[in-house]
């Protein structure tokens, strides 16, 4: 194919590559300019580095955290809680949505409760979890679950219900049981919903974990942020926020990978 490129095609492809290079270049410029401007403003006294911190001091803080070995403990704790919360929220939520799809009675009975629970700001439950489960990982994961579970249930259930009725009818004429309709049709055809639920849940899990760590913990990135602000070490706060952004972005990429793997596993080709 590459040998028989017409001149117009080659020119078009070169143009596409140029445009893509320009986008990457401008992104890099934006990043460098942001940090350089920040540093400059701090050095010229335009911004007080005690309140706003600055990139050079954040770098020192980062090296300090790295050399004391605490950094990976904090990252590990937060990432672990997020992954557990994410998996539990997604699996449990999908399981409950399956039950609702299965039983019309159950879904009709539970409908108003789900609506109320969905409307409730879940962070209000934080203190309750601490009392029930103590100040530790359990309460944090409960927090994460509270935030992601109801959304997962509602989204997945809505996805299940959107299954094409003609196809359900077709499977029934082929003799499919309710269980077979679910496994052969409803679940695979809800894959786009599952994919969007995964992406939303990874973000919600981070919210739950950081929220929980603000309230109770002795470790984790949320703890570092709260601790830093209490002792007025803005360098620590800012550094941790940047690390958090990187960790969350990496995990999002991981979820995209998981999505691809699931797609392959389920044999979804479209």
């Amino acid at each position, binding site marked *: 194919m590459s040998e028989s490129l017409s001149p117009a095609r080659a020119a078009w492809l070169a143009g596409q590559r140029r445009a893509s290079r320009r986008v990457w270049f401008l992104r890099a410029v934006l990043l460098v300019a942001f940090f350089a401007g920040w540093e400059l403003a701090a050095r010229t006294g335009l911004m007080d580095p005690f309140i706003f911190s600055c990139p050079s001091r954040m770098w020192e803080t980062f090296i300090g955290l790295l050399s004391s070995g605490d950094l990976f403990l904090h990252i590990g704790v937060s990432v672990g809680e997020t992954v557990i919360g994410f998996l539990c929220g997604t699996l449990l939520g999908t399981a409950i949505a399956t039950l609702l799809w299965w039983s019309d009675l159950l879904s009709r009975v539970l409908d108003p409760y789900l609506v109320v629970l969905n409307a409730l700001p879940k962070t209000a439950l934080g203190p309750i979890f601490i009392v029930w489960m103590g100040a530790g990982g359990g309460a944090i994961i409960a927090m994460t679950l509270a935030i992601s579970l109801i959304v997962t249930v509602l989204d997945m259930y809505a996805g299940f219900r959107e299954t094409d009725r*003609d*196809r359900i*009818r*077709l*499977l*029934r*004429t*082929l*003799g*499919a049981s309710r269980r*077979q309709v679910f496994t*052969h*049709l409803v679940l*695979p*055809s809800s*894959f786009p919903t599952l994919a969007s639920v995964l992406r939303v849940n990874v973000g919600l899990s981070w919210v739950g974990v950081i929220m929980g760590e603000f309230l109770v913990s002795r470790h984790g990135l949320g703890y570092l942020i709260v601790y830093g602000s209490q002792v007025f070490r803005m360098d620590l706060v800012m550094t941790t926020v940047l690390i958090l952004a990187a960790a969350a972005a990496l995990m999002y990429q991981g979820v995209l990978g998981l999505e691809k793997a699931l797609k392959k596993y*389920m*044999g*979804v*080709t*479209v």
Partner: protein
Amino acid sequence: MVELSDIYLTYQAPDGEVPALAGITFDVAEGEFISIVGPSGCGKSTLLNAIAGLETPDSGSLLVDGHPLRGPDPAVGYMPQKDGLLPWRTIFSNLCLGLEIAGKNTPARQAEVRELLARYGLSEFAGKTPSQLSGGMRQRCALIRTLASGPKLLLLDEAFSALDYQTRLAVSEDIHNIIRREGKTAILVTHDISEAVSLSDRILLLTRRPARIKHIYSLDALRGIPPLARRDHPAFREFFNAIWKELDLHV
């Protein structure tokens, strides 16, 4: 093959009862091709769904192959308007769907499916996904999927209506030939009178809702003539006009 006598079916809806079928009686002989036509919304599809075992009549008796029908039956194959092929499966695995559901997805049965594909020139599509096929090809594959489960009776619910005109002629001719060659009995629901006249041995004309049988046409003058050739036959116009007139009175 199919014996319906005095079938009544009424839908219960929140704002009242909707009578759909009011005393339908007819027989379909083995190997016969029957079309059901009638005004839109008259209950044609309800009747077909009842024979598919998807709807249970309130009264009357419905025998398929000599047995009373209780729910979906392996002797009855159903082909919807949309091909219903699952986009995440290859064509071949779509065709084996019925076997898989019945727990009969054995190498022997798979070989039969491959043979069906080969017989009707569709082998090259086995490993493709439905989105890679044209609408006409997908509809042919949908028929093979229906045949794969080994039904004696085929129910075609507006099976060609989603296709464009030229494809519809070609596919209906093809599917008609396949059904004849495999020796199946078929009942087609359609709103297209010319399609009914070109394909059928007999045509059932239904009244407006609730559906009764208004007239049964025996197309003896056209028997043995293939669908496309029928369209040029003088008797084709006569049947078309007769049915059109009867339908018109009721619309």
